[in-house]
């Protein structure tokens, strides 16, 4: 990451109200001292725009801007936090005074000298909405709408949304951390409703990443989203009720990796493990998945939705192996939990905005490829379910029970994919579900870039991925008992 981004952040976040490194030093040293062992300031300027089409017209467009600074003081496992949406010295000093109430007594502390941090260079720092004019954005949405309607006369409603955000952040920590990041993010989503003989079904598809709107024009990518949404909706028109009960399930590649996010990802976040409230607590070194299963969290993939040059505590992201050949080898950590667990920070400290506290969060979480052909995996199942598209999921960290909901699935009968079935929720137990992985495909795929993860009321963009997988004895929540 270039020095230019730090200059950009100074110019937009600090200079307008005359702040400089010496003022940041003053605020941080006022924060530190007594039992406070770490403090940081998180400056943020975020801009967001979105456009929405329905009934063939772009009738909504929105613009949003927000800026502010979060001030945090940490003492052991205690955190004091305050924020202000005015980036001026008196507000900063006020916030610092409030935050340090957690443990501050006595003299001011000393902060370390500023050190430049070397982050990655995974995406362009520019405003991602600037490479198309407003007219071009409107016409892009109209082309997507026209494509969806052209494909099939049964398409009765098309909704398309286009959104871009640009997030400029600067982190100043009492250990001398001074680092900035400029984060673009774009997304395009298509939802369609189809109608046939009084039956209605829906389909949706989308994609994006830390790139610019031009991404959707490459190879007419946006139009492929429309085709995929229509295809899914038409498949659902033919769907029969889903089966209920325990069965062998083959998951398709890519977005079905939401399985990993829910089943093991959250359970391997440092905070839950430090507190001993995760079903994975104390399981490092143990076999938690079948041999051949390797899962990583990788924040360093260029232009991916879950990637970051540095995390929200100023630490460069990395590729962290969570499960290696079936054995649990690592957790995802932010600064505080890493220190308390005496482990290295892994660049997973993330926050929704300056008004939220950072905590350990995933970036892009995926399983590495195995060596089996996907067709062979399907052919190996006598009777079961083939699930290729999913909505969201959820997990109970403590009991380990997790769900994820299929939106496109088929029966497998005698090794062949046969009839489509209605959406159903799949449920399992995180600590043992991966021990029942009986085949790993050679077709690793990452999702298209639409994932958003919620934890403690904070949303952050994430990615998932996996190759085709066979899992034996997963419970499918259909209606056909």
């Amino acid at each position: 990451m270039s020095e230019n981004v730090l200059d950009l952040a100074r110019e937009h976040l600090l200079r307008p109200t005359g702040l400089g490194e010496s003022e940041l030093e003053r605020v941080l040293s006022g924060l530190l001292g007594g039992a406070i062992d770490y403090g940081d300031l998180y400056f943020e300027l975020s801009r967001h725009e979105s456009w929405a089409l329905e009934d063939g017209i772009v009738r909504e467009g929105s613009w949003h801007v927000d800026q502010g600074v979060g001030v945090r003081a940490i003492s052991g496992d205690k955190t004091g936090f305050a924020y202000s949406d005015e980036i001026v010295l008196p507000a900063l000093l006020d916030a610092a005074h409030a935050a340090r109430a957690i443990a501050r007594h006595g003299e001011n502390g000393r902060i370390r000298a500023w050190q430049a941090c070397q982050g990655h260079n995974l995406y362009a720092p520019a405003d991602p909405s600037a490479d198309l004019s407003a007219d071009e954005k409107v016409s892009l949405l109209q082309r997507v709408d026209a494509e969806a309607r052209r494909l099939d006369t049964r398409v009765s409603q098309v909704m398309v949304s286009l959104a871009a955000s640009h997030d400029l952040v600067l982190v100043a920590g009492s250990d001398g951390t001074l680092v900035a990041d400029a984060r673009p993010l774009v997304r395009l989503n298509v939802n369609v409703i189809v109608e046939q003989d009084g039956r209605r079904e829906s389909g949706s598809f989308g994609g994006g990443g830390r790139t610019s709107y031009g991404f959707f024009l490459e190879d007419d990518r946006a139009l492929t989203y429309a085709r995929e949404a229509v295809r899914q909706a038409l498949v659902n028109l033919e769907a029969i009720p889903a089966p209920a009960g325990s069965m062998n399930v083959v998951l398709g590649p890519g977005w079905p990796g939401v399985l990993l996010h829910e089943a093991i990802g959250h359970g391997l976040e440092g905070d839950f493990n430090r507190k001993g409230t995760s079903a994975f607590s104390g399981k490092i070194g143990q076999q938690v998945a079948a041999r051949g299963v390797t899962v990583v969290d990788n924040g360093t993939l260029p232009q991916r939705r879950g990637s970051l040059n540095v995390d929200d505590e100023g630490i460069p992201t990395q590729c962290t192996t969570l499960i290696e050949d079936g054995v649990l080898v690592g957790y995802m950590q932010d600064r505080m939990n890493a220190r308390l667990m005496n482990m290295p920070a892994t660049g997973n400290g993330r926050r929704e905005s300056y008004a939220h506290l950072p905590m350990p969060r995933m970036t892009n979480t995926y399983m590495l490829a195995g060596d089996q052909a996907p067709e062979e995996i399907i052919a190996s199942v006598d009777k079961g379910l083939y699930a290729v598209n999913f909505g969201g999921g959820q997990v109970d960290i403590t009991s380990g029970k997790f769900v994820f909901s299929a939106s496109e699935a088929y029966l497998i009968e005698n090794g062949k994919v046969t009839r489509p079935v209605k959406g159903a929720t799949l449920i399992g137990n995180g600590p043992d579900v991966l021990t029942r992985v009986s085949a790993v495909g050679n077709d690793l795929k990452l999702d298209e870039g639409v994932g958003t993860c919620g934890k403690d009321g904070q949303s952050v963009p994430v990615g998932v991925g996996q190759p085709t997988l066979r899992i034996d004895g997963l419970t499918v929540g259909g209606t056909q008992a």
Partner: protein
Amino acid sequence: MHDVESSRTERLSLETIVENVLDQARKAGADAAEAVVSRDLGLSSSVRLGEVETLEYHRDKGLGLTLYFGKRKGNASTGDLSEGGIVQAIAAAAAIAKHTAEDPYAGLPDAEKLAKNYPDLDLDHPWDIKAEQAVELARRCEAAARDYDPRIRNSEGATVTTFRGTLAYGNTHDFVGSYTATRHSVSCSVVGEQDGGMQRDYWYATSRVAEDLQDVESVGRQAAERTVRRLGGRRLSTREVPVIFEAGVARGLIGHFVAAIRGPALYRKASFLLDHLGEAVFPVFMQLREAPHIPRALGSAPFDGEGVATQPRDIITDGVLQGYVLDSYSARRLGMETTGNAGGVHNLIVSGEDTDFNDLLARMDTGLLVTELIGHGINMVTGDYSRGAAGFWVEGGRIQYPVEEITIAGNLKQMFRNILAVGNDVDLRGNIRTGSILLERMTVAGE
């Protein structure tokens, strides 16, 4: 007195900003405009294992505005309420409106629908509490939970929060309205352990008036009781059985009904309750009434998100759907009138026969009591429903043992029709007030 005064000053200050925004919008050439300004203050104190874990001071403000140029519109929002911030937001909305399409249905609500004289709903009850006092309350709450049973071995902590916020809304029909509201809460979540298996559960109390909150020790004990009773959970084999949604999760079930009768779902034909006005959606013994003016209630509001007067009304009478949940845009799309629901419903009260919870269990005899649901397996277009569940197996009207790692599935349209009874154990902690709900039959998937 001080609080009444501070609210009045704050409301006046925000109303002035709204009027300024509307003036500037007109000067920028807008034919019509609306704006909402809010400012909130809050404190959140958490304790874990007897020690302070976090102290968070919240301070948020924001401006949202919509400008109309003929039948085109643009939206903008900002956290910057300064003159410069307002000018920037108006320019951004105006720029967007140059590119959005003419929409014949776009515009402000009709002037006569606006809440010209709106009631004071007694929503502002500041809690004069210092961080140290909030920490002490959280500590007592968590201690009560941890002392409840030796199987409570760990904790996710207890939290005490207090928020006070003022909102002002105005539009170019010469309307501006504002109100201040408070919300306070106490919550606790603990972890129990038995035979190597862990479970966590939680409880919370929330109210606009601090004195009305359930006492903190009893919140803690209830969190612990709910956690301990889940220990030793078993799975079930796949079967079809009657199901009771405990009041807390029954609220979500009614929430799906509300989502299905909201304007956008209807004009997009994306609802399983399309064209059901005047039809029986629930059994004949059920009534759903919206009561937006209950003093101090969590869902009360004097006007909706576009200044339209809220009014008490029946949504379900003897099981039959009487009206939709509409804002002015979706109402025009449907050829109807707004129901004052821009932003959602306000205190939706579900009533059925007045059945005691134990009578519900007895009536079910054998079946599943659901106390927690996870996942989002709901298709609003078809009504297909499939979610992860945890709860208790019931036989002979008595709870037998906890169950987990199962799903429940059905179709919402049929599930609503197949409601057998609604309990009188009404949960008042939200915008939808319902007791537990007994359903005739759902598919449970397990081993």
